[in-house]
């Protein structure tokens, strides 16, 4: 059973290797391999999620090395949820891409699978250095995916993206070095035990390491002041890549949540709650800046990119509240915002394709060729992302605000979240009317989009409705995930006590 845990990393890896070999075959082989692999991934992830839902923490010791020395993959409810979200988003983006977007540059599917490998690995790993490695895999794939298709805007954004993230990687390594020097371990569970017992001499080093990690993960999550690379990069990326990127900021948020919950938790002795006090102000400022960005955008895709930043900021401020309830609401919010965010990027591309040279600009007048379909999809997406009833965005926001009531600066959270919500509604309705209503006398162009693309887009946008219908089950899952995250002891004992015993030549897998 435990070998199943390796599959989310192994499936994209094997698919990627195969794609490398069959790359020149052409005639759609790559599409078939990519789709088969992603469907297989989704089924494995659903199986894993079913297992994780029981509350058991699965641990995979790679190479059967004893725990603090070998690399472990760990699956708890949180990891399973994020894996599932990534797989769903990937499948929809992939179905969108196979109608031509994968042919505007070389080796789209290979890069796509490598990106999935990195994302899945980052969600599963239980080791800090291994997290770095998976981050690098997902980053190098994302550089190439962002650049997929070429063009001036993409090259310009890619240069920012790559240089900033390379500096980020250097800082990540410095943080790892500092933490290793202070504690002598990089295994997350082992770290959780050891940080509580750090001596006074090492504390400063450990704190510096922890805060540097926060900086790096903030860069990935695109928080202010290190998140300004995101809007141009996402706005210029090709649609399926941009839709998949909707999960990338969540990888950063996930890493912050994992470090905050496990290593720098409230019982971590001298470094207890090291990160938590930073999160709320960081999140609040990010939300404010991103809202301004949303209002100032004159192009739909840039507006959506600012919405991605906004959702990352909202997540971080919720995590800053520091209660399991808040974490649970953050997870629910992440589900909704990722699905709808990804769907909106696909929709923006459909709109851009149907408007010819006007693309997704909000200032030029040009009607889309299927105003009824795209208009309704835009309406659904806007409701989902802005947090209006009856879709899940509303439930997420309500849940989030409920968990902020008790907090000392809850009033700030209320003010910022509600005002930003209002301004987002204003910006989205302005964008919607600019695209669908203010069309002047220009002729409609013939559409070059296909039904499959519309279906993939609609599937993601309707994810918000599905989440609302299944809100009861989903929130009970996210609450259980948050409680599990709060219980560091369970994680630590699952990883450390489950040591692989090598006795007199015989190897026993599990005790």
């Amino acid at each position, binding site marked *: 059973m435990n070998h199943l845990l390796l599959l989310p990393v192994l499936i994209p890896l094997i698919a990627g290797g195969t794609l490398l070999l069959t790359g020149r075959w052409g005639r759609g082989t790559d599409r078939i391999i990519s789709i088969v692999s992603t469907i297989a991934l989704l089924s494995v992830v659903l199986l894993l999620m079913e297992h994780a839902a029981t509350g058991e923490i699965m641990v995979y010791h790679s190479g059967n090395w004893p725990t603090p020395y070998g690399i472990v993959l760990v699956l708890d409810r949180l990891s399973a949820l994020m894996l599932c979200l990534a797989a769903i988003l990937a499948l929809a983006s992939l179905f969108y891409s196979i109608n031509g977007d994968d042919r505007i540059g070389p080796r789209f599917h290979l890069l796509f699978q490598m990106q999935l490998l990195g994302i899945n690995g980052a969600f599963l790993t239980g080791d800090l*250095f291994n997290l770095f*490695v998976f981050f*690098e895999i997902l980053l*190098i794939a994302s*550089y*190439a995916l962002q*650049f997929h298709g*070429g*063009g*001036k*805007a993409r*090259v*310009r954004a*890619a*240069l*920012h993206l*790559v*240089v900033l993230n*390379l*500096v980020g*990687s*250097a800082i990540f*390594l*410095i943080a*790892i*070095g*500092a933490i*290793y*020097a202070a504690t002598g371990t*990089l295994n997350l569970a082992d770290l959780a035990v050891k940080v509580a017992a750090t001596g006074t001499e090492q504390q400063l080093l450990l704190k510096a390491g922890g805060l540097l990690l926060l900086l790096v993960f903030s860069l990935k999550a695109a928080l202010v002041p290190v998140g300004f690379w995101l809007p*141009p990069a996402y706005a210029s990326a090709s649609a399926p890549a941009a839709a998949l990127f909707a999960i990338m900021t969540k990888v950063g948020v996930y890493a912050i949540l994992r470090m905050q919950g496990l290593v720098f938790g409230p019982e971590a002795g001298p470094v207890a709650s090291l990160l938590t006090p930073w999160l709320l102000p960081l999140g609040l400022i990010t939300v404010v800046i991103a809202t301004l960005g949303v209002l100032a955008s004159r192009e739909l895709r840039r507006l959506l990119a600012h919405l991605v930043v906004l959702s990352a900021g909202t997540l971080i401020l919720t995590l800053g509240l520091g209660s399991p309830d808040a974490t649970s609401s953050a997870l629910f919010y992440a589900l909704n915002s990722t699905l709808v965010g990804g769907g909106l990027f696909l929709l923006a591309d459909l709109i851009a394709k149907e408007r010819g040279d006007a693309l997704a600009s909000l200032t030029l007048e040009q009607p889309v060729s299927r105003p009824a379909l795209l208009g309704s999809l835009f309406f659904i997406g806007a409701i989902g992302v802005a947090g209006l009833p009856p879709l899940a965005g509303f439930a997420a926001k309500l849940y989030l605000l409920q968990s902020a009531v008790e907090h000392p600066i809850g009033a700030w959270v209320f003010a910022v979240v509600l005002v930003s919500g209002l301004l987002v509604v204003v910006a989205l309705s302005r964008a919607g009317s600019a695209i669908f209503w203010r069309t002047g006398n220009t002729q409609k162009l013939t559409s070059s989009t296909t039904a499959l693309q519309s279906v993939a887009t609609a599937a993601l946008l309707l994810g918000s409705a599905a989440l609302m219908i299944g809100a009861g089950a989903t929130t009970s899952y996210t609450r259980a995930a948050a409680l599990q995250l709060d219980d560091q002891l369970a994680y630590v004992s699952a990883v450390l006590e489950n040591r692989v015993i090598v006795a007199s030549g015989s190897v026993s897998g599990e005790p």
Partner: protein
Amino acid sequence: MELTLSILIGTMTASAVYLLLRARTFPVVLGLSLLGYAVNIFLFASGGLTRNSAPLVEHGLKNLPDPLPQALVLTAIVIGFGMTAFLVVLALRALRDLGDDRVDGGGEE
């Protein structure tokens, strides 16, 4: 030795930051490489510095060096190498497409 090493790392990092802030692709590539070297030496030192000792393990030797940072550095070097190669290609592409080697690409749109 600690002092020498920290001065070395500090000087390299400072030079790297200076080069990065030049904001032209070639100095930025150099700066990132230099930053990579500084970080690798820092990582190497994170396991503690030992002198007159075996590189890995020698039977009967008490003062053993920590092998883990060496493994980390090795991985970091490989990753850094790949990333630098990618960045060089991207920088050339940017020079060709944008006709400018400034990292900010010479103004928006």
